[in-house]
């Protein structure tokens, strides 16, 4: 190759205005294809799905005369909706016009934050919610769903024992689902991002 790369480049693009842009249809209504926007959209759809679930829980509890547990369950689901909504706001903080290193680092931080928040939700919040339903059920055991499964003289410790067992099963399933979904959703992206960030940081030194 005799010509310098600069010469090849300049000769090929003598008239840059002649480059023809790909046809784009209805760009203004197009949805973003970036992974962050896709994750955000999926979260938004999933999150909105919690509202009908909360309504369904409430209606079912009314049908089965489990008013207190119904209201409690529906409130928890609505709480989860607001938790997720708050989480989604993080996506809006990424500034795409910042320099590459800052942008990639912010991008990485958001992924970490979402991942950590989801993990905490699976690890602590969901088990606690399930356990709290058992405790609530114990205190209103005459009228709650637990009346069908336990005798009147069952102690709180015994109920807690059952609750903890259920929580452990839910925890094991939830963590497995979390790990698999994280790997599928973020695995390749995270390693690619880390490589690029590492390279720019090395360049910076």
């Amino acid at each position, binding site marked *: 190759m005799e010509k310098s*790369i*600069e010469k090849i480049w300049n000769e090929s693009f003598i008239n840059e205005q002649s480059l023809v842009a*790909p046809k784009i249809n209805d*760009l203004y209504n197009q949805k973003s294809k*970036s*992974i962050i926007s896709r994750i955000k959209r999926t979260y938004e759809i999933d999150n909105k799905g919690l509202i009908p679930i909360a309504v369904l829980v409430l209606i079912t509890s009314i049908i089965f005369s489990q008013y207190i547990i119904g209201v409690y369950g529906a409130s928890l689901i609505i709480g989860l909706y607001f938790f997720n909504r708050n989480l989604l706001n993080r996506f809006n903080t990424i500034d*795409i*016009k910042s*320099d590459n290193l800052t942008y990639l680092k912010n991008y990485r931080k958001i992924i970490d934050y979402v991942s950590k928040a989801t993990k905490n939700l699976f690890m602590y919040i969901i088990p606690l919610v399930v356990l709290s339903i058992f405790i609530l059920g114990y205190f209103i055991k005459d009228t709650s769903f637990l009346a069908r499964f336990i005798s009147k003289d069952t102690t709180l410790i015994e109920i807690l024992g059952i609750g903890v067992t259920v929580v452990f099963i839910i925890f094991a399933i939830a963590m497995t689902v979390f790990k698999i979904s994280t790997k599928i959703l973020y695995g390749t992206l995270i390693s690619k991002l880390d490589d690029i960030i590492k390279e720019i940081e090395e*360049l910076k030194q």
Partner: protein
Amino acid sequence: MSNDFYTTAILPHAGIIIKICRAYTDSQEDFEDFYQEACLQIWKSRTAFQDKSKWSTWLYRVTLNVCLTLAKKNTKRGYATEITNEASEDNKAFENENLNLLYKAIKKLSEVDRAIILLHLDENPHKEIAVIIGTSANNIAVRINRIKKQLKILLDGKIN
């Protein structure tokens, strides 16, 4: 976004976006996706543009950020169309054999080196490249020399 914005603010600079997107994609579908995504993000963040920097510099930043982070999906598709002269027949520039070889060599570089050399080839000063990437001008100068040597080896061996 109004059609006016695309026609007046993006289209006159489409060349920059095309050159970058082409260096980060291997198929025509990906190329069009990346181009569209870059335009979309430019439009979305247009209100944040300040006159402190040149509009073209700003386009570089957004387009590079899009290309560096856009999820690649065509590796999973068996039917992806490779970018060939035919696929880009609208652009006579890409029919140039030397340019095609150069692009092939550029694609062998890491994502960061690709960004640096594209900015250099488009005659951006080292200082500006450093600002776009997020590093220092001295490091950029050293890196450009290294990349050029790497490209020369690839081109002399007609890429491998």
